[in-house]
Every structure is written in structure tokens, then in C-alpha cells.
């Protein structure tokens, strides 16, 4: 089945089903909240429940409409999923018809063309847009027309974790539904349901590191985060030299998206520096008196806190610079080395000796 029960968001979705049953469901809903917490899963669940023969209610999964939603064959449901389609942006052609699009090919079905025809099976025509912030301004403006003049039976569910990238005119035309990060227990539940063969302690650790986002936990695992975090720990504790860790870092298996090897290397470097920043942030919070048990990276944070508040702040600044350097397209290999050197005393000694030589 391609749609799953959105764990930990049941109450929210139940309320939307109740609103639909009373005929109070708005025509445009924005699901917003942190990344990877199941907003799009919830959107699919909502769509399936509205199209289900027994709906509006939790989808049965057995009837024809449920099967068609699950296999992406339902004629009254349009999914715009740039992640599944491997697209960085949602082009304006997916929203509104353009005369110049698709030369020599079957013209792509746009949202506008989908909504221009009446429903095939029932009354609802549902459009789900995943990470709708990937629409550029032109695409968002094209969507406005549909948002302003919805036809009966139309439901648009927009999902995003970057609300600030949406135009105010889009936001003002949607009912915003806020999804919160999951508790650690709920996060563990989702991870266990995702892969029952995953060791329980791994699920517990991933849930702690992911800060209430199962999606982030799964991405962390896919990117080899468990091994990378271990390498980072060795570096922080001084068990292994930073440059040796940097060399080992590139050999860790992990999935990073990008059309070129450099783009993938940049993604990998970004992941490491973000992880180091999260560890250092926790170290500084530990120094400020936050209990270790409340911190995602409490074990590593203790080692960071030992370097003192000033030392931690200095390393944090250096990491922030490295993060900016990645976005400046500097060589990712060099950025990783600088980031790891910034974490250790040896790095500070090296920098001090270099600045002495320059002086």
C-alpha cells in the first residue's frame, strides 16, 4: 500500500474527516510543520479517506477507490510530488497549461487541466502538492487563480516545511494546519513500523538524534549518519586524528542526491557540518545547564562541554563559516578537513602555528 496511517497525527486528521462529513472542509489546506514528520503521509491518508467508499473517514484500504489511491490510479486524485519525480522545482507547467510546453510529447497534465474536467467517480477532485515551496513565484501565481475561484468538490492540500517561501497571497487563501514534531516515543513507533527488522536500540538512538522527525531519522540512516556520527565522536574525543577521520569520511556509504559527483560531495559535506553543528549546539546547551538526557546528542555533547564555553563557541563559529563555504561552492573536501580540524585542539594548534608563521 502506498498510503499509511499517519502515526501521531490521528487526532488532527480525524478532525478534518469530521469537518468533511459536516461539509465544512475548506477548499485549500496548507499542512505545515517540520520536515519529515509525516505531513505528506497525512495528506495522502486524508485524500484516501475522502475518496473511500466508506468516507469521509479513515480509509478502509479494501474498496476500489482505496486500491486506486494506493496504486496511484485514482482518476480524481492528482499528486504533484517533485521528490518522487526527481525534480528540484515545481514548474509552472505543472500548475497551469502552457502553449509552449512539451513539444513532440503528450502534453503534461497540469493541475488546471485536471480541475477543468468534472470528477470521474465521485464529487471530490483532490490535488496534493508535496513540498509546495518548490514552486517558484510564477508557479505560485498560476496557482492563485485556482485558489481564488475553486469549483465545487475541489480540494487542494499543500504540504511544506518552508512556509516562509510561499507568497503571502497563497498563505492568505489557505487554511493552515500546523503539524508538530513527534515525541521520541512516537518517533520510535514510526521507525519500528517502517522496518520491523531494525534493532530496537538503533530505532531508539535514531529517534533521539532526529529531534521528533522520523523522516529525518530515516534520511540520517540512509546517508550513513550512524557511521559518520561515530567517526565524529572519535574526532571529538581525540581518539583519531581529524585528517584521518576526513579521509575515512568519504568512504562511508550513504545516499546523497545530486546530478554531478561534486553536487553529491557537497551534500555529504553539508550533512557532516550540520551534524557537527547540532552536536556543538547541544554541547553549549549542556554547558548552560540543560540536562544531558534532554539533548539529542547528549553523549557527544559532554565531550564538547569539556572544552569550555569559549572553546565550544569558537569551534561553533568555525563550523558556521564552513557551512557558509559549502554554499559558496568551495571544494567540499577542503571544507570537511577544515571543519574537522576546527573541532580539535590539534586544529587550533595548527591554526595558531599558521597565524604565527604569517605574523
Amino acid at each position: 500500500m502506498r498510503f499509511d496511517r499517519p502515526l501521531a497525527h490521528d487526532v488532527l486528521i480525524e478532525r478534518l474527516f469530521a469537518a468533511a462529513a459536516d461539509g465544512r472542509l475548506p477548499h485549500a489546506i496548507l499542512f505545515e510543520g517540520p520536515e519529515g514528520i509525516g505531513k505528506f503521509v497525512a495528506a495522502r491518508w486524508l485524500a484516501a479517506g475522502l475518496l473511500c467508499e466508506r468516507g469521509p473517514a479513515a480509509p478502509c484500504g479494501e474498496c476500489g477507490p482505496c486500491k486506486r489511491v494506493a496504486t496511484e490510479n485514482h482518476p480524481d486524485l492528482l499528486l504533484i510530488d517533485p521528490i518522487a519525480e526527481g525534480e528540484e522545482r515545481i514548474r509552472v507547467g505543472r500548475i497551469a497549461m502552457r502553449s509552449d510546453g512539451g513539444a513532440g510529447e503528450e502534453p503534461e497534465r497540469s493541475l488546471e487541466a485536471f480541475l477543468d474536467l468534472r470528477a470521474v467517480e465521485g464529487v471530490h477532485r483532490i490535488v496534493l502538492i508535496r513540498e509546495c515551496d518548490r514552486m517558484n513565484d510564477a508557479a505560485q501565481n498560476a496557482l492563485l487563480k485556482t485558489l481564488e475561484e475553486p469549483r465545487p468538490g475541489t480540494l487542494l492540500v499543500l504540504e511544506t516545511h518552508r512556509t516562509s517561501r510561499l507568497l503571502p497571497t497563497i498563505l492568505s487563501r489557505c487554511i493552515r494546519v500546523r503539524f508538530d514534531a513527534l515525541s521520541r516515543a512516537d518517533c520510535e513507533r514510526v521507525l519500528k513500523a517502517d522496518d520491523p527488522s531494525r534493532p530496537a536500540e538503533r530505532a531508539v538512538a535514531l529517534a533521539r538524534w532526529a529531534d521528533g522527525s522520523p523522516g529525518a531519522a530515516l534520511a540520517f540512516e540512509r546517508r550513513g549518519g550512524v557511521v559518520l556520527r561515530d567517526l565524529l565522536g572519535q574526532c571529538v574525543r581525540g581518539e583519531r586524528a581529524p585528517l584521518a577521520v576526513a579521509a575515512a569520511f568519504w568512504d562511508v556509504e550513504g545516499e546523497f542526491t545530486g546530478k554531478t559527483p561534486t553536487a553529491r560531495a557537497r551534500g555529504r559535506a553539508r550533512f557532516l557540518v550540520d551534524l557537527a553543528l547540532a552536536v556543538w549546539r547541544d554541547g553549549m546547551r549542556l554547558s548552560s545547564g540543560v540536562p544531558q538526557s534532554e539533548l539529542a546528542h547528549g553523549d557527544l555533547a559532554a565531550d564538547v562541554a569539556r572544552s569550555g564555553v569559549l572553546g565550544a563557541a569558537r569551534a561553533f563559529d568555525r563550523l558556521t563559516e564552513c557551512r557558509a563555504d559549502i554554499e559558496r561552492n568551495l571544494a567540499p573536501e577542503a571544507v570537511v578537513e577544515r571543519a574537522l580540524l576546527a573541532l580539535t585542539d590539534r586544529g587550533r594548534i595548527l591554526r595558531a602555528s599558521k597565524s604565527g608563521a604569517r605574523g
Partner: protein
Amino acid sequence: MKVLCEREKLREGLTVATSVIPMKSTRPAVENVYLVATDDALELVGTDLDVAVRFRIEDVKVEEPGTALIPARVAADFVRDLAGDTVTLRTKGDNLLIESGDDCCELTTIDPDEYPVVARFEESDSVRVMAATLTRLVSRTSFAAAREAGRYAMHGILTQTEGDELKMIATDGRRLAMASAALEDADAGSKSAIVPTKGMQLFCRVMDDPTELVAVHFGESQFCLKTTKAEVFARLIDGEFPRYSAVIPPSTENRLEADATTLTQKLKLVANVTSSDTRAVRLSMEKGALTIFGRSASTGEATAHMPVDFDGKPGTIAFNPDYLIDGLKNCESDTVRLEFNEKTSPGKFTLGENYVYIVMPITIDA
């Protein structure tokens, strides 16, 4: 499911069904043809979600009723190339066997529940019309429907019944074609739907016998047609059709009547010199004569004369020649009538009985 049928009828059915089934779709199930074996017939269902066809083969021997969803193109190609006269279709586990003589093909099936629901024709509240009448109305109007992106309500033909009359109207905002004909039923009531042009054209393809009496039904979301062999469904356009009656002049001051063939020929002649950016011909009228003039800054100019019957104030009006030629292609009488008031008001062409074509004029300097 187990069915025996004639190869030629199965081939014909698969050809009709695959004519609507897309080669590639974002919804993989619609790339298949849905076979339904009832007690006395085999139905082949195909759809691209905009239009759907249910082709019925009557003379079959159904040994075991059932359904199957199989890849449409492979099945159609295999049946087309078979040499035998009869074909057996039977399910075997999750597969469907197509057998004829010593030849056999085993196709993978998928769960029929994954296939979109294709409605059945509702006899109640349907109206009857001669196939040739429906085809004629579509050909009289469909050319004027909009094709460019946007203004989706104009991508269809407004189809209406009023009493015993069936009327079709299509427009792209610059021209409008309106035709009507009598229904077989005395009073069909008042019904209206915007049917996509693509759907209407499919209806015409399926109606192979012009003398057949077909039934049409105005559904809530679909326009449906039933012939003896097939049921065809087209999803309606969910929009508001322009208020077309406002552009049809109720009375006119100028009236020209000309031989349709000669006018077409002269228009084509003069249109040759006009370019795509100044696609306009000027029609200057005076008693007994029409002068057609076209000019392009880059190529030159052309003039043609022809005798006409003109009643009104001598004057000039300009049109896009392509629009006029499109309309004249469908002219059903020897004489075409043009009526208009001002050079800036719509030109009303009468191209046959109950057939009106409105073209907006072009304002050109000098």
C-alpha cells in the same frame, strides 16, 4: 473467465478501445484494456480518463463470466496478427491466455479494482438522434473551438437540447459556430453540457453507420452516447461557457450573398500575399460587386473581384481569411450570406440551414 469469440470482432473491439487508451500515462492502470465477460457478451473497456469507451461484442460464447485487466497494445497487436478465425480468452491464475489454433499468448493481468470506474449508459432520460445528424453537428462546429492554453471552457462544444432540437455551439473568442438539428424525440426538455471536442470526435469515430439511431444522455459529470456496438463517455468541462447569444446580431443593415465556391477561391487567392502578422483581407462591397484586398508590407498586395448580391450601404469590413475559409469549408449550400452592421461589429455568415458562423472583424488602418 473463459470466452470464445470471432477474431475479427475482437480485433475491431480492441482497435476501438486502444484508440482512446494512452501509450503512456501517469496512472499505469489506464494503459490496460478491461475485459468484462457477462453471460451473453464480452465488453472491452478503454479510457484515458477524459473519454471512455465500452465496446460490446454480442456473438460470443461465454463459458465462464469474469473480468481481466490486460496490457492493451500487446493484446491488440497479438490479436491483429493471429491467423485463426476464432479466439479463446481464458484466465489462468493471475494471467490471461489468448489462444487461437496452435498459437497462444499469456498476458499478465492486474487487479481490476485498480481500473477507474467506467459508467454504464443510463437509458432513462436519454434522447435519440440520427448518427449522421450528430456527426454533422460536430463537424459544423468543432473547428471553431479553442485550442490554445487557457480559457478551458471554450475547449469544448456547448451541447444543448431545447424541445425537439439539438444545438451545438463552439467558439474560441474570435469566431463562433452554431448549428442545430432535429431530434427524433418530440420533447427532450432543456439540457446543456460543455463536451470536450476530443470526446465529440471520438463519438463520431465510433458511429460507423450514419443511418443508425443513437441515444445520448446528459449526465451530471459525463456526456454519454450509445450505439448498438458501443457506449462512449466524455467527461464534461467544469466551467462557464461564454454568453454567446450577445454576439449574434439580431438585425443587420448590410447583407451580401455570394457563390460559396467562388468566394472561397478568391479568399485563398488574396490570402496568399498576407503574412502571419497581418493576416487580414478587406472586403469592399457595393451594389453587385465585391472586392477582396489583401496586403503585406513585406510581400505586396493582391486584389480580387467577384459579382455578388449586396443590399446595404457600400462599405468595407476586414476579416482573418483563415477563419472565413474554415467556415466556408463546411458550407452546405451553394450560396453564402454575410450580414453585418458596422465594420467593427461581428460578421454573421449563414452557411446552411440552421447553421450560423460568426466572425469578429479586424480593424485595419487605411
